[in-house]
């Protein structure tokens, strides 16, 4: 599993509430990514990080923010959850081997 964990694994929340998802890696890799997976869209990049405090936007970043204060943790925050953010969220890391590895996913439902 490349030492990647995500928490929580499942969450149901109400529209308008803030939500934070956590990605944790055990091997101190530089690159970390947040993707969302939706039927008919595949996986789309939300935000990514190339080091502590170094982050940038991906393809679908509106309504999301991230933080990386430690190498091992990459947090994704939905500032005010909307129903369109109901999705499965995957964290990923990229070691120097050149292969991107994915976490187990977080299934988020916004009611």
């Amino acid at each position, binding site marked *: 599993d490349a030492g990647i964990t995500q928490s929580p694994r499942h969450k149901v929340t109400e529209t308008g509430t803030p939500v934070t998802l956590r990605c944790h890696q055990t091997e101190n890799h530089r690159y970390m990514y947040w*993707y969302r997976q939706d039927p008919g869209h595949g*996986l789309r990049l939300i935000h990514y990080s190339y080091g502590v405090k170094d982050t940038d936007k991906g393809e679908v970043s509106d309504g999301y923010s991230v933080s990386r204060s430690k190498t091992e943790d990459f947090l994704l925050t939905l500032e005010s959850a909307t129903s369109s953010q109901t999705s499965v969220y995957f964290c990923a890391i990229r070691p120097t081997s050149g292969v991107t590895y994915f976490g187990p996913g977080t299934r988020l439902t916004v009611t």
Partner: protein
Amino acid sequence: AQRVTQPEKLLSVFKGAPVELKCNYSYSGSPELFWYVQYSRQRLQLLLRHISRESIKGFTADLNKGETSFHLKKPFAQEEDSAMYYCALSSGGGSNYKLTFGKGTLLTVNP
């Protein structure tokens, strides 16, 4: 902008039949291409990477730069191959190795 196209959303074959999942890409640089597989409600797993030229679980894929394709093939499909398959393109170090995914092909292998 880079793009990955998987023209088939669904593909259904019988056990023992050959299977080909199509992937076309557009990218201005030298592409690095991957196939990922996702079994039901699990994390994405790397299946193939074009530079390794391996055969994994009987699957092969050849990069055709002239046709900008990276089709996935297996001569004899098995029921356990039923899964979602994603083709992905890496943007390289200058773009922090972000992956761009196709929308995926759901393969069903019938007994």
